[in-house]
């Protein structure tokens, strides 16, 4: 590995060692508060592409299907590069990672991940630690050297595998009748704005989504690494051993989850600094923060442009919203909430918050309102508990037919709008999400 000028340890690298650390966060299952903590640290800058990063932070559990994409993202980081893996303390999780990724620094849930990142970054730039070698074997996607009349693998006008890949083919257009090329790209699972573990095979016709399929990389099995972090608020069912569950803990987790979601959404809309502020709040919300939260809510409601750009994007109402359930349904005016039936919640004066439009704007309003409400409930709850049946998960549950629901929501949209839709719904993807794909394809045919 050669970094020709400004070698690690050289004067330029010593100057660079004091820079904000560019970090790419690869969220595994149960990534917990890792991203929020990094976002809330001013010495760290979370970037949108591995090309711009130096440190790869892996959080939580990476199932076997996501191991190769993770290795590829690792390789896409230009040298010098280092990996920091934050994992839960599952049985032997730390040792397993150390064995599989010997170059990585492994930290547990209790360690300060931001400080570890900054330390690892300084070490590699000061030359005290070698830059990491690529993890994937140097194999071209297809044999092309010396193939074909020009030795570049192509044949004819558009055939063959020039430079290792075929060219895009044509398809009839959904919108305006110009049948130009369509390009199929599998997006995810480590695209920053994507829900954890989601892989969408998007067929692009220009910048418009022509078709969407869901791929499943989450199936558990041998070769998975790391364990989920305990503070994963998405499911917020707490410790299965401790039943019934305390309401205050549940609701704080809900608040944290919504705020982390909001921090990611704001970054998607380019508001990095505001996202950092929200991430700081998400790190540990206590009931006293409620004034800050209301303040934030007012501020975002007044942000005219944010309202305009999220309004009308990814509208999910009616039956589609009912199919999604959870936050998405409530943002569309359906008062579906498991907590409504709980006597404990009723004693706290709980009534579900809803919004009307079911678009991107109402979804962030809904989440903010629920975060505020959650903190209020947590403050009032005392040591009240709730039984399993009446726990409303904080995260958006994925419907049984996730592929169908996303297909309806995304097809025909411009990519920016499609991504905003996915990010604002943010479903919690479970293994088997794309499993019914062949069945659906048959049904369609």
């Amino acid at each position, binding site marked *: 590995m050669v970094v020709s000028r400004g070698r690690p340890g050289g004067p330029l690298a010593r100057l660079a060692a004091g820079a904000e650390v560019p970090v790419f966060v690869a969220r595994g299952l149960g990534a917990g508060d890792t991203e929020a903590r990094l976002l809330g640290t001013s010495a760290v800058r979370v970037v949108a592409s591995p090309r711009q990063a130096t440190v790869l932070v892996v959080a939580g559990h990476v199932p076997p299907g996501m191991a190769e994409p993770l290795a590829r993202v690792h390789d896409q980081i230009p040298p010098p590069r280092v990996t920091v893996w934050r994992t839960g303390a599952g049985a032997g999780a730390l040792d397993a990672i150390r064995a599989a990724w010997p170059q990585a620094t492994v930290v547990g849930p209790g360690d300060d991940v931001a400080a570890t990142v900054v330390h690892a970054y300084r070490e590699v730039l000061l030359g005290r630690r070698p830059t990491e070698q690529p993890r994937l074997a140097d194999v071209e996607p297809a044999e092309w050297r010396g193939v074909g009349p020009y030795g570049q693998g192509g044949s004819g006008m558009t055939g063959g595998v020039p430079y290792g*890949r075929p060219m895009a083919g044509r398809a009839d257009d959904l919108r305006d009748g110009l049948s130009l090329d369509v390009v199929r790209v599998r997006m*995810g699972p480590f*695209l920053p704005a994507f829900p954890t573990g989601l892989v969408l095979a998007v067929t692009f016709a220009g910048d418009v989504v022509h078709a969407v399929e869901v791929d499943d990389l989450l199936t558990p099995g041998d070769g998975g690494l790391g364990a989920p972090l305990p503070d994963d608020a998405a499911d917020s069912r707490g410790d299965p051993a401790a039943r019934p569950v305390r309401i205050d803990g549940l609701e704080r987790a809900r608040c944290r989850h919504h705020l982390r979601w909001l921090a990611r959404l704001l970054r998607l809309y380019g508001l990095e600094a505001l996202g950092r502020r929200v991430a700081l709040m998400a790190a540990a919300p206590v009931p006293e923060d409620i004034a800050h939260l209301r303040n934030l809510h007012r501020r975002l409601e007044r942000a005219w442009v944010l309202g305009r750009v999220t309004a009308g994007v990814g509208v999910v109402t009616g039956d589609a919203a009912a199919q999604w359930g959870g936050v998405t349904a409530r943002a569309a005016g359906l008062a579906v909430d498991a907590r409504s039936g709980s006597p404990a919640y009723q004693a706290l004066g709980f009534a579900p918050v809803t919004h009307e439009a079911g678009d991107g704007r109402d979804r962030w309003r809904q989440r903010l309102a629920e975060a505020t409400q959650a903190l209020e409930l947590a403050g009032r709850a005392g040591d009240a508990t709730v039984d399993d049946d009446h726990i409303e998960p904080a995260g958006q549950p994925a419907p049984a037919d996730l592929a169908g629901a996303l297909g309806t929501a995304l097809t025909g949209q411009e990519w920016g709008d499609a991504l905003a839709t996915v990010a604002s719904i943010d479903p919690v993807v479970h293994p088997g999400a794309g499993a019914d794909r062949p069945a659906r394809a048959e049904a369609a045919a």
Partner: protein
Amino acid sequence: MVALAAFGAAFTLLVATAALVLLGRWLAGPPGWAATAPERVPFAGGLPPDVHAWNRFHARYYVMALLFLTFDMEMVYMFPWAVVFRQEGAVAIGEIFVFISILALGILYAWRERSLGWS
């Protein structure tokens, strides 16, 4: 020839700046640090693409592009107008008003046909 000297300076500036950037790029290291094939895969969240991204890209704003092509020409006429209009007075305003109105009709038509957005 004074004007040509000034333009020469502007041209020198353009070439010098670009050369400086390219020189810096060359000094900072060779391209791709002899990257392996996986290191060169385009980023899409971790999975490799099926096909080359270069394609007959369906730019959805082609009608707006055509509108721009013609509307842009109006500027050719308006800069000379701006220079002399104070000498010519109200007549000049009248002429440019007619000219702008004619072209604004084009935008109005495009807007009415809803041709400005993505097709």
